[in-house]
């Protein structure tokens, strides 16, 4: 691997990790689409700041973008609070408005600047190593330095305010009652989302920022039930997708950001299907198991009710089950096989009887 290749992968990993961290809280707060809005409207912040400083390298751009990000959030909330517009519609109204202002400004006044539409939408990671900066005597890619700083800010914010973030996300009422303003925590988080979106913008473009924020968190959500692990897993999934995406892009001679989002999406699909507890397969298997267990319990109760009565000779027979319990013959045989395997039921020439174990199970089910 060449130095440039390593650098590109490093940038990709840092971008993915920086996006994954605030993404976890967005997903848990049910605000995933807010990242979509912010990642677009920060463009207006960049354009407006550019008109002031006339360069695309100033840190002022990040502050300007973060300010517009927060403006997006507060405009959305303002609209939503009128109760004339719902939350999702409010997002859908605010962000295209701000984004279109930015697009018009670029096309009218900033033509020829690096802010072209392809770069805005898709980003170009492959060129990242050409733009270099010297830090502490080290010659490093500009976007690596910027994203590393943003990653550190995200880590620091989440580490310092971890218990408050967790509390305010889970129970805003208690947070307010304890004196931690949920609004302040909310805007702090949105500021993180904004600066992360600006930083990631250059590397991956505004659309794929959303994929890097939401997808790893959504996958991690399916894999664990602890917040700490969800944060760690999101970063791992994001980083894995970044490296995997780079090599996928190389193999296909394709856009790196798009390939990264694709690999992260595939990782999500894997979690969606095969997550141990919450995946589609696990749920289907659990449902199936419950169906058999329920049927088996019904069988035991049926046998218990007729046990020792005169009609037992008729009721407690294999061929009667399909009539009385309306079971298909194959299903009845399946239930019986399971009940026998678990030693709940004994079969003697077509006549069924409960074992002590089966009797106990039936009685327990009835008293529950």
């Amino acid at each position, binding site marked *: 691997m060449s130095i440039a290749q390593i650098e590109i992968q490093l940038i990709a990993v840092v971008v993915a990790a920086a996006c994954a961290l605030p993404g976890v809280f967005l997903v848990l707060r049910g605000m995933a689409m807010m990242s979509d809005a912010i990642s677009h409207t920060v463009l207006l912040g960049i354009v407006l700041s550019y008109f002031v400083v006339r360069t695309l390298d100033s840190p002022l751009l990040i502050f300007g973008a973060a300010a517009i990000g927060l403006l997006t959030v507060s405009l959305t909330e303002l609209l939503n609070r009128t109760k004339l517009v719902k939350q999702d519609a409010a997002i859908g109204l605010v962000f295209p408005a701000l984004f279109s202002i930015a697009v018009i400004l670029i096309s009218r006044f900033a033509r020829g600047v690096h802010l072209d539409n392809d770069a805005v939408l898709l980003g170009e990671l492959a060129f990242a190593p050409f733009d270099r900066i010297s830090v502490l005597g080290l010659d490093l890619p500009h976007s690596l330095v910027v994203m590393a700083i943003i990653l550190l800010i995200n880590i620091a914010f989440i580490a310092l*305010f971890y*218990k408050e973030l*967790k509390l305010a996300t*889970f*129970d*805003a009422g208690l947070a307010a*009652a304890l*004196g931690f303003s949920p609004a302040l925590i909310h805007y702090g988080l949105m500021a993180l989302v904004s600066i992360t979106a600006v930083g990631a913008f250059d590397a991956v473009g505004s659309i794929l920022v959303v994929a890097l924020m939401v997808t790893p968190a959504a996958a991690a959500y399916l894999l664990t039930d*602890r917040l700490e692990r969800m944060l760690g897993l999101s970063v791992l999934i994001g980083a894995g997708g970044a490296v995997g995406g780079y090599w996928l892009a190389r193999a296909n001679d394709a856009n790196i950001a798009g390939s990264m989002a694709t690999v992260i999406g595939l990782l999500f699909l894997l979690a969606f299907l095969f997550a141990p507890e919450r995946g589609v397969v696990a749920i289907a298997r659990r449902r199936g198991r419950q169906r058999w267990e329920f049927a088996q319990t019904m069988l035991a109760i049926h046998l218990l009710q007729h046990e020792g009565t005169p009609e037992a000779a008729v009721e407690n027979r294999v061929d009667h089950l399909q009539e009385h319990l309306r079971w298909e013959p194959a299903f009845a045989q399946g239930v019986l096989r399971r009940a026998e395997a678990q030693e709940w039921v004994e079969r003697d020439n077509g006549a069924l009887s409960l074992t002590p174990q089966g009797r106990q199970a039936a009685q327990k089910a009835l008293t529950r």
Partner: protein
Amino acid sequence: MEARHHHGDSAYAIDLSGVSVRYGARLALEDLSLTVETGRRVAVVGPNGAGKSTLFNLLAGVLSTDRGRVLIHGHRPERHVCIAYVTQSNQVDWNFPVSVRDVVMMGRVGEIGLLRRPSAADRQLVQDSLDRMEMTHLAQRQIGELSGGQKQRMFIARALAQQADLMLLDEPLSGLDLKSQDKIFSLLDTLSAQQVTLLFATHDLNLARERFERILLLNRRLVAYGPPDQVLTSENLAAAYGGHMQVLDTADGPVAIGDMGGHHEHGHDHGEAHG
């Protein structure tokens, strides 16, 4: 710990005067004046939309008044770590990735303070609270795996860990069987003995009559506050419930019929508070 000690200056746990809260054009609470002595056990009753959840949000410092004054132990409610709020179960994201122990620890966040981690004393308090609610064996469970009664016990454990002097319980018994209800009441007895003030919102007038020393009857305005036999009169119930409820006079006193369930509507007035 300090928050627990500067309470000496007021005999009242709750002191409201002329309090009004408005959601848009609708008045949720109107001109409410009330004092509750420290250590009282109060049932808060009234029809759906009477402002029970609004009152709790106000006392917890989640909502602020449009008019009037709220004092908790002589202080304004914000930043008052001594107030614990057990919310209605349907307001909670039960899929949230936290364990029972995590949630109980949240009760300590106010005392721990910014930029600090839980101390050994905090962890011990959380453990003691779990022990008291017989939940230690469930401490590592994800909260969605709990039964209805266990969920309520978890929030009460959190209130215990908070070492609250004022506990607000918003319909904590909805959906619980009698055994779980009894467990919760025996704990409330212990808390009452420790001079913890308890406000308990419920739709069940008989429960209010049998288990509480004071009843607060609310319908946007204060209808009555006092001992059960003075509050649950035909006139008061008719004033609070109006046409929604029939009041029958029986040998045991007046009994109100109708409008007893309907938790969803009650949740609705809470929801509007947050928009």
